[in-house]
């Protein structure tokens, strides 16, 4: 007793799908790059469309048809809301607003574009990124940063949703 549902969840998420064709790969990739001339950090995210569709549908109780011709009109607003809630960034210890600019699709991936203001030289970036963590126990969000020509990466998981990079 007690294990069945958890087992079921794991079975659904990991074990059963695992040997089948639709085997999933629960990884979203975020790239952050500082552009000193513009005093902004440019950020892109690459998230599997079907996972994101399911997450939005679960949260907002409606279908979005993300990345299809029938995509609902104000999808951008919902994306802004969802991702705004999931991604928190502190630059040099102070919260920095993530401005969502737009999106495009590339095969089965949705690429979103964002900017963050950064007036001063960046010494630290703290990222909390829980995108899709509510959907999959083994979701991984990889953050690649390139600041002052230094490249550093963070791997955020359900157990460890926050990380800091120092430059």
């Amino acid at each position: 007793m007690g294990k069945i549902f958890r087992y079921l969840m794991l079975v659904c998420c990991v074990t059963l799908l695992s040997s089948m064709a639709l085997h999933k790969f629960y990884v979203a990739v975020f790239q952050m790059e500082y552009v000193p001339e513009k005093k902004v950090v440019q950020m892109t995210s690459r998230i599997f469309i079907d996972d994101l569709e399911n997450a939005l549908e679960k949260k907002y109780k409606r279908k979005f048809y993300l990345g299809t011709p029938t995509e609902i009109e104000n999808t951008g607003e919902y994306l802004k809301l969802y991702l705004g809630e999931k991604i928190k960034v502190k630059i040099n210890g102070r919260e920095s607003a993530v401005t969502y600019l737009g999106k495009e699709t590339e095969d089965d991936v949705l690429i979103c574009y964002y900017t963050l203001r950064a007036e001063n030289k960046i010494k630290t970036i703290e990222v909390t990124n829980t995108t899709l963590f509510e959907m999959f126990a083994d979701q991984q969000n990889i953050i690649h940063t390139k600041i002052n020509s230094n490249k550093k990466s963070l791997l955020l998981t359900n157990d460890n949703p926050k990380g800091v990079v120092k430059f």
Partner: protein
Amino acid sequence: MKRRIAYAFALLSSVLAVAQETPVQEREPGHGDNNKFSQMYDLMATPNMFRTASGAPGPAYYQQQADYKIDVELDDKNTRLYGTETITYHNNSPEPLEYLWVQLDQNKRSKKSLSPLVENQRMDPAYRPSAFSQNFIEEGFDGGFNIDYVQDVNGEPMKYTINQTMMRIDLPEALKPKEKISFSIKWWYNINNYRVIGGRSGYEHFEEDNNNLYIIAQFYPRMAVYNDVEGWQNMQFWGAGEFALPFGDFEVNITVPADHILDGTGELQNRPEVLTPEQLKRYELATKTFDKPIVIVTQEEAERAEKNFSDKKKTWKFKAQDVRDFAFSTSRKFIYDGMAVKLAGKTVMAHSLYPKEANPMWGETSTRVVAQTLKTYSKYTFDYPYPKAISVSAEDQGMEYPMICWNYGRPDENGFVSERIKYGNISVIIHEVGHNFFPMIVNSDERQWTWMDEGLNTFLQYLTEQEWMEGYPSGRGPAAKIVPYMSGEQKFLEPVMTNSESIHQFGANAYAKPATGLNILREVIMGRELFDHAFKTYANRWKFKHPTPEDFFRTMEDASAVDLDWFWRGWFYTTDYVDIGILQVKEYYVTEQQPEELKGHTVKRGRFNQDSGPFVYMVTGEAGKAAQKNTFDPAGVKLLNDYLQDSFTAEERAKLKSPKYFYEVTFNKPGGMLMPIIVELTFEDNTTEMHTFPVQIWRKNNQTASRVFATAKPVKKITIDPKLQTADIDVSNNVWPPQKGNSKFEQFEKGR
């Protein structure tokens, strides 16, 4: 010379870096052969009489055979399956066997199963009531096999021991080489609702009309594989590592409610007894129709049947030869279609089984996709040897058996089919039908190595997708698609050569990465002709046999004369990733004036002599520019001009190259994986020129390489791997001069 200085400098700086961390070390310790081109004697099994060094089955190669006679009956009301079977097991090995191992895969769902106990758990902060109940209150589902008896040919009970998903049958006398033994097993089990409990088989329930759609597999006790590499492959079925099964002949009788439509592995023996005369006629038409699927059981007939709930029974009788397994699917809801497929040397049938909920999508595409898959795979391997292939519509599924497979993807309740579902469905059908080739026929051990069937199959799936439709949005295959995985955190990455149960990211590790590796071999390293021949050789050598990873690796080299040890070593045995960059570019100028630092410089001539000049000097930087004065012209360099005048006639001189610009490019390799260097030079007039340097450019120095380019036009830009063919995980160091900012981001901003 410069190269040597650069190399010496690189060595020096690495020594300095070490020196800062550890006490001063005067002399570096020695080392073994740690070159990434090192041949794989340390990793591969020694070839022997069973499996040769060429990668082919050896003179002593053997494999066991298991023949089955099975009778099963489906209890649709109680969702149970009852069965009896007689297995005839042939010992073709040179050893006597004291016991036999039989697989009881459904025991993974038994109440006593250990599989759930090896999963890590965490408390959820919130549970739905149903989930809370299932998790903490309800008794779990009991889906294990209930064994009524195991008997010998005389009906006497045989001694058996069940260890989780494996059953050992002890033989009174050892089964000698070349002998066979028959025994019978009677069993039953509760069929799982796979959409609630999970599973590769089970049933899907349709609330609306109270019908079940059954996809039945692993439904009978199956012989384990005994062979020269594993002995008995009796590693438990934990859930991830699929199956290892010997070949054999099957006779299977399946009794189901009379209003069900059913199909399964093998050839149906009693079609006139189970189909109506009208349906039989349509079937006959389908066997002669090559251009479109013919509906054999119509939607109208299926809709009528799903209201019936007949109390009568019908028995469907099948025979199958040279298959490693048997599976079937049955439901009142089934629509059934078929079309004939012409392969190089034979004609086979493509079929689909689907409920009305899957239409019109399934009626339009499924069987056509099956046909495409059989054609493309046959072209790259061998003519599909079985008489048919069936695609069954089963939500949430993607699972393969000989001649039959389950595939997800239906329109939603409003009849809408998103692009994701459309392409997901086509891809899953290609993939699962494709599994007929790997591992159903080229019968690798899935329990041990998931990649051997999934990786090879995903590779051919990619080729089939591209043949189905030019520019098909393939998720796996193109090199660039594997970059997010290969650039991930190392602690979540395992080599492809890792046992199926220990892999973190199954889809990326066992499907996408090996498939991408094969695509890179085909497109970049070996070329299509050599690759296709070697791949086909592997498939033909091992069809209806049991290959190991080494048999594949060895055959690919043996049939192509391309040394690939470095590739297997890096791509399959490690988590190394590709990252090649441009370290520096130096432009050189030509002059006759001897630079100060080259006073007394000599150049080797022949084996024993030294020349002390005069020379044509190559000078870099401002000094070079000043010394060369104008754009380089051989006529302006007297020494060179004299040589050309003396050595060539005017006619010959007219055909000589006329380089004007000279560059020395140094490449570095932050990634551990070796790769050929693909270089694109872009000239000031925006024309381009490609250069590919074979991977052996790294053979003596795995860290840096350099090349000289002499061009007629000034080079504006140098790009490594411009078409993203090598899975280079960081392309920001691939361009000279270095690009500022995120170019993709700038493009997006401009487009807004």
